């Protein structure tokens, strides 16, 4: 298949039902060994992200983070995990029992399933589906059901308010996210994740700056990070849907939050920053560039968290429907027009034109729309 700018894209390295040519003894051993590697990667990255976040946020606040446990505090996440696992698991009396017990599982599992299609190197993913990015969008919407189950079954008014906010926020931000992804797919010509990485000679963050901004903001709203973290806002509703959870179930919710952050960082790296590609290193070491880019994206997320206050729920909804959705539609229109009418233009001209258009659109949009809600008559 040919991508938009006339360069050919290699066929996916693994057909979904066949083995990779260099793995011995069949399809099942590849699957099982890679699943074990993925789990180890997942747990290790979750602990690394927890440690990284605490140290970096402390530097923004001019203090030293945890540095007592182990050299430079590197065993701090281990201590955290042990502490959470040995805490008492309290189940209150009037909760809706089965929904209460199943909610953490429903929330955690989809965030692990995303890792099945991410390419760590050229062709090195668990399964290289040819509908990769569509699978990601579909799976990541399931975990909100777990949060709503937690909020409803806890029999607590604070959790109920939080559950209602979760539904509204996550469902509204799915649409700009999906539309920004369609912009990328139009440029690359394939839905498979490995194919998207291979089609990027110029990283898509330069070719679609407006799409990157929209996708970044929408995915921060999906994973409930500041400035959209009003679901677990400490100031008002004191930890939201995980008020009544303690012990291992709380550990699963905590892990979900970081797993979604890892998932979003890896997806942004794959789609917009050209995944495992990078200069100066032979192609067998693509995973080094991959990890560097993932940590860079996460550092940007932490930087935004350390600086900005949070928004109110009606401002969040207004931002999604009045601002991000029309901008993502216009982005798609511009991308489509460029592909259809000027397919042979050099890529750097498109970069320049897109940056100018992005700046113009953001300035224009900010002038003409109003976000605040007023006082309601009682």
């Amino acid at each position, binding site marked *: 298949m040919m991508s938009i700018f006339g360069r050919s894209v290699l066929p996916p390295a693994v057909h979904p039902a066949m083995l990779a040519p260099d793995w011995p003894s069949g399809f099942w051993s590849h699957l099982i060994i890679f699943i074990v590697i993925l789990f180890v990667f997942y747990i290790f990255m979750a602990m690394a992200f927890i440690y990284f976040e605490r140290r970096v946020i402390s530097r923004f606040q001019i203090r030293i983070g945890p540095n007592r446990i182990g050299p430079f505090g590197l065993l701090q996440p281990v201590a955290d995990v042990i502490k959470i696992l040995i805490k008492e698991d309290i189940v209150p009396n009037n909760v809706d029992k089965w929904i209460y017990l199943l909610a953490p599982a429903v929330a955690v599992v989809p965030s692990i399933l995303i890792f099945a299609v991410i390419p760590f190197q050229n062709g090195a993913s668990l399964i290289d589906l040819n509908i990769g990015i569509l699978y990601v969008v579909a799976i990541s919407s399931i975990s909100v059901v777990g949060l709503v189950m937690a909020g409803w079954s806890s029999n607590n008014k604070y959790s109920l308010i939080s559950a209602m906010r979760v539904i509204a926020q996550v469902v509204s931000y799915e649409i700009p996210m999906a539309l920004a992804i369609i912009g990328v797919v139009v440029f690359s010509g394939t839905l498979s994740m490995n194919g998207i990485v291979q089609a990027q000679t110029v990283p898509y963050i330069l070719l679609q700056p407006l799409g990157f901004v929209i996708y970044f903001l929408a995915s921060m709203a999906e994973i409930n990070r500041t400035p959209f973290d009003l679901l677990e806002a400490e100031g008002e509703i004191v930890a939201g849907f995980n008020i009544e959870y303690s012990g291992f179930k709380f550990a699963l919710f905590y892990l979900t939050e970081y797993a979604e952050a890892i998932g979003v960082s890896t997806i942004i790296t794959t789609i917009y920053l050209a995944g495992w590609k990078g200069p100066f290193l032979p192609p067998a070491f693509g995973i080094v560039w991959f990890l560097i880019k993932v940590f860079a994206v996460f550092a940007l997320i932490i930087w935004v968290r350390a600086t900005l*206050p949070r928004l109110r729920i009606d*401002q969040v909804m207004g931002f999604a429907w009045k601002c991000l959705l029309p901008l993502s539609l216009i982005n798609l229109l511009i991308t489509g027009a460029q592909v259809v009418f000027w397919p042979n233009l050099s890529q750097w001209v498109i970069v320049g034109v897109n940056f100018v258009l992005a700046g113009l659109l953001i300035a224009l949009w900010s002038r003409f729309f109003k976000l605040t809600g007023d006082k309601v008559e009682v």
Partner: protein
Amino acid sequence: MVLKTETFILNAGPQHPSTHGVFRMRFTLDGEVIQDVEPVFGYLHRGIEKLAEGLTYPQDIVFTDRLDYLASMTNNQAYVVAVEKLAGIEVPERAEYLRVIMAELMRISSHLMAVGFLLNDIGAFLTPLLYMYREREKILDLYDMVCGQRLTYNYMRIGGVSQDIPEEFLPALQRLIDSLPRFIKEYEQLLEFNEILLMRTKNVGTLSKEAAINFSAAGPVLRGSGVKWDIRKADPYSVYNRFNFEVPVGVKGDVYDRYRVRIEEMHQSINIIKQAVAQLPQGEIMAKVSRVLKPAKGEAYGHIEGPKGELGFYIVSDGSANPYRLHIRPPSLINLTALRELVIGTKIADAMAIFGSIDICVGEVDR
């Protein structure tokens, strides 16, 4: 078919991360919109007014420290001004200037904390709060150098102050007031044009001029609504009529205006400290007061401009060494009477922002 809805009661209970202390608010909510609020307080009542009747006048200064424990110097000053008015004592010049320097430093520290906690409640995850705390640490170091404590100072006495300043105080103070305006400007820049902060604080919790006067509000709440009333200019006590400084006044009376008034007041306090250090005379620090003070029969009301509003003490004396009645006018409690009108019709997130901008301290509300 009409959709049937029901209101429910949410208890922002005594233990909550954003009510500054043990203060309870019972909201009646319809979805996210607040229909009614009922504040419940009294969880920190210690009986200070009754206990003060069993102690002598100099011993009562210790209890006034613990009223608004974040601004102890101005509490001391209010009590001492009231007793001096009752007993007719003249305070020497050097003591007055030292009192002014300490009170203005206290005002800066209290406003730093108020602004920091307001931003923390709005959601900025501790970063502006820790920047403000860093500057407040420098002020607390100065207080530690003079009177030995960082929180409950017990520094002012009836007739003057208790100890003179050591010789490394003035150079350190000079360095502090040279570096502080730059830091305050940096924090203003962090948040002044920030769109999210503007969206959260503009047109939220608007208190009109007439309503502010009717609720007898005082301090930045009153000045944010446009009323230019400051006791340091309207009824000057101590030596405040020798300094020239301005009184910042807001326009609309929303949360943003009160936040700006507090930041401008910090700049004006730095101005006053500079003038006081330049005019500081030598001399005595305490007037000749008998060891057991027995003022004549009568009553007096002494008030000052504290960081949270007008703090007043009403003392009735019957000629003995203990006061007959000591009553405190707490600015936080009287500013809170406006809470119900401000909060009805807004959402929960706004209610916390409004509550943070009134800036209470529960030790004062409950005494």
